[in-house]
């Protein structure tokens, strides 16, 4: 397993500051390669399982890569690799030199923890990895050491810690009830009705806790501060991947641990899914509205994440196969699109120190590639065809019709109108205002920053046109999970 390698990497870099970047790059690249080599295997046999130190599931720790885990792992490695390359030049300008090794250390830690979180099938491990990526993300937010950053990190820490604690409680409840920590084992034991009350309480605790992690309305308040104040590659990492871990948590609990068809729990389960769906709908609308009234580019992008997470969770909790496929697809679409937006925002800060949207006048003329990448990614966030975001919305809408949830149809459409407002406003400032300054030619960012940004934005288009690469498997996965 790649985890150990990645975790050991940074130690080397501690005393050779300059070597940090290539060393972590090597670690991430090898990990990515290993993860991608699993794609064929998982597609063929559905699940790859590995029992750590040979103990069999109910007792030992099992690592289990199902389709969902693989999707997340691929996303983490792919986007993570891009962000790391981008960090190389960027991070030098934003944080103190002596902290750079810490940055790479933390980066690899969070990377490892997220991978672990996606592929473990043991609840305790689940918690441990969650704690690692949470704590490292507090540290990454605070890494610049500025006052604002510390404040944002503290706010994040406060909410994150409470939610982690809640998860721990919930796990304890489940353990006391079932005597097991393996997800599948718990799932099968829960079928006997003796544990009902405890299990329902645990379910509620789990969902509440992961709602904080995924920044669902109304517990999203930590996100705009943390995501906008962190250095840009970190913002991208947090928005594109870390909050998806909260989504994954909700997903794992709802579908892997509890499951749709329990006779005894189904009413609790359904009402919780309903509550999450409505919270997601509110996230979509309010996140977008908040994004519209922002003047700082990064805060705007951060609020947009709240709204996009709403789409994902709405899709998942529609409990229809199409909606679920759409929700999962939006994980991919949003990870690439949002990472790209944050990277572009980062380039503006790096080159010109610009954070406010009005100050971006005419920047599309001197930095056409950067601004073009932003426009392309924005199209995906809005859901204009043919982009990945469009495919996701299409499936979510389809899911709404399947379940007869017409109110959500309106929410989804209204949400994309609102996101059009905040996205196109920025595009407008970049391209259509400000006289072209004569004599100023192209003034682009360094290649190592530009390339990841461009790749991510082209990715949103690619996955919009060639959605058949993923969709059939997502549909199948959804069908299996929902037993339809």
């Amino acid at each position, binding site marked *: 397993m790649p985890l150990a390698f990645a975790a050991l990497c940074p130690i080397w870099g501690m005393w050779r500051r300059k070597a940090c970047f290539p060393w972590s790059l090597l670690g991430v690249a090898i990990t990515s390669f290993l993860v991608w080599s699993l794609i064929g295997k998982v597609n063929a046999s559905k699940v790859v399982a590995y029992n750590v130190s040979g103990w069999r599931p109910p007792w030992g720790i099992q690592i289990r890569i199902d389709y969902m885990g693989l999707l997340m792992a691929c996303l983490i490695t792919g986007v993570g690799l891009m962000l790391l390359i981008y960090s190389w030049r960027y991070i030098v300008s934003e944080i103190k030199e002596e902290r750079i090794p810490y940055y790479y250390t933390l980066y690899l830690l969070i990377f490892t923890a997220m991978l672990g979180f996606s592929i473990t099938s043991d609840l305790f491990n689940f918690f441990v990895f969650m704690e690692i990526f949470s704590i490292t993300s507090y540290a990454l937010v605070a890494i610049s050491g500025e006052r604002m950053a510390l404040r944002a990190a503290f706010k994040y820490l406060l909410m994150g810690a409470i939610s982690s604690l809640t998860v721990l409680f919930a796990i304890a409840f489940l353990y006391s009830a079932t005597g097991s920590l393996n997800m599948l084992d718990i799932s099968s034991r829960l079928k006997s009705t003796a544990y009902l009350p405890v299990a329902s309480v645990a379910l509620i605790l789990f969902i509440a806790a992961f709602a904080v992690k995924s920044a669902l309305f109304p517990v999203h308040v930590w996100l705009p501060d943390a995501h906008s104040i962190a250095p840009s590659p970190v913002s991208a990492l947090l928005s594109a991947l870390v909050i998806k871990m909260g989504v994954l948590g909700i997903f794992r609990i709802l579908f892997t641990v509890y499951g749709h068809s329990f006779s005894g729990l189904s009413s609790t389960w359904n009402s919780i899914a309903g509550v999450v769906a409505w919270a997601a709908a509110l996230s979509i609308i309010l996140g977008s509205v908040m994004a519209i009234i922002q003047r700082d580019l990064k805060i705007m992008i951060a609020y947009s994440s709240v709204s996009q997470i709403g789409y994902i969770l709405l899709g998942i909790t529609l409990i229809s196969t199409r909606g679920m496929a759409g929700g999962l697809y939006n994980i991919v679409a949003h990870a690439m699109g949002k990472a790209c937006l944050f990277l572009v925002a980062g380039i503006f800060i790096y080159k010109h120190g610009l954070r406010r949207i009005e100050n971006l006048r005419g920047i599309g003329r001197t930095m056409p590639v950067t601004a073009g990448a932003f426009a392309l990614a924005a*199209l995906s966030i809005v859901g*204009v*065809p*043919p982009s990945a975001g469009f*495919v996701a*919305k*299409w*499936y979510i*809408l*389809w899911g709404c*019709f*399947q379940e007869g949830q017409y109110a959500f*149809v309106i929410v989804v*459409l*209204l949400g*994309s*109108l609102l996101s*059009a407002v905040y996205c*196109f406003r920025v595009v407008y400032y970049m*391209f*259509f*205002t400000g006289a072209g300054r004569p004599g100023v030619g192209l003034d682009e960012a360094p290649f190592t920053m530009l390339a990841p940004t461009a790749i991510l934005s082209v990715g949103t288009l690619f996955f*919009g*046109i*060639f*959605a*058949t690469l993923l*969709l*059939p498997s997502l*549909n199948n996965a959804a069908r299996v999970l929902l037993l339809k």
Partner: protein
Amino acid sequence: MSKIVHSVLPAIIMAVPWLAIPGAVLWGKKRPGAAKAVYVGCTAATFLLITTMYPRAMDGVVSVQHLVEVAPGINLAFRVDTLGFYFAILLSVIWLLTTVYSLGYIRTRETRYYCFTAINLSFCLGVAFSANMFTLFVFYELMSLFTYPLIIHEETEIARRAGLKYLVYTITAGAVILAALIMQYYYGGTLSFLGHGTLNSETISKPVLLIIFSVYMLGFGVKACIMPLHGWVPDAHPAAPSPTSALLSGVILKVGAFGIIRVLFDVFGIKLLGDLGVALPMLWVASFTIIVASLFAITQNDLKRRLAYSSVAQVSYIILGLFLLSPDGAIGGLLQIAHHAFMKGTLFLCAGIIIHETGKRDIREMNGIGSKLPITMLAFSVAALGMMGTPLTCGFITKWELGLGSIQAHRPYFIAVLLLSALLNAVYFLPIIYIAFFKGDPMDKLLKHETSRTMMVPVIIGAAFVVILGIFVTVPGLPYSLVKIVVKALF
């Protein structure tokens, strides 16, 4: 059943306009001549390539091309039937005229203008060639978004405000169309165009069909400027540079109408629409638009604004003709697409010359302008006479067919709408001609100076078409022959 052949031509044709971009970007500043040559060359090449599809279109052969399956059951694909060919050839001709014209007219930010005009040509062709509602929607949305830079080209405060209004209307409409699209897919099971309706009244309940229909009309009605969804039109047209106004009126409004045509013929089918009983309300809406927009046009003093309101009225002729659900009505409606494109295109290009040469937009200031710009105003008069439906112009042919169609549909009272509209057209066009030619100072003749040739030639060709299409109606290759084939296949 029509014959089907596979062809790679649609994708190639759509790719050609994109070739203008490297030319415009690389040479825009240093060698403007080369950039212009590439830009016009690409547009002309597109036109020529489309003409190669002419024999197939005349035989009713359908060319299909499958591009990529985006999601299971949802494809990007092309299918060029006679209707698609008709629309494509028309829009490439109009594009060519405005392209040549814009060489003389556009003096600032040429690179951006050339690029986005070329891209829009490609997307409009995509709409014309689309094989299913999904493909149509994709290119329709892209076209809508990429028109924005053309509208705000001059970057004045007025243009910005008009652009914003345009965006609000068009993006909202996009979301509405998406809703209709997904309903069609969910209930009907397919989005393909097969030359007949695919929705089935036996499996889908009537209220659902009505909802799908109304949502589609709301969505496409914004581009086809059915009142009261027309709000962006009178602002966007005057704000945009004149070649863009000509494109907006001549083609882009028609793309909305084209969407409605596809909904009518390929989603619902004529029979189902007849059964649903939605034709009559649509006819009333169209009539209302024709009359009220004409009345608004009379009150406008800004020339381009008056023309814009006239477009709102004229596009509803298309809707009127189609929803008569009779063969002659459909011929009239489809003919109107081409005829109006030439008439209104010419008018906007003339308005552009007036603005370019004299800087005047207000009709009241145009005394004697016919003496200064005799050829321009002559062309303007020809096109204006066409709008009034004078015999020997193409406007007459349209009105004649529409009249026949309404009798055929047993709804002769819509002839009254046509006559009233012709009268109102006269009310708002004749004064312009009068002011231009008969109200000036005789000394104005001394100031005569026509504009550059690149702007003059397209205007003359446009005006010539107005007359040619009115006299040589049945010559093969002109709109009537194509429309006849389309309608014959449908009824």
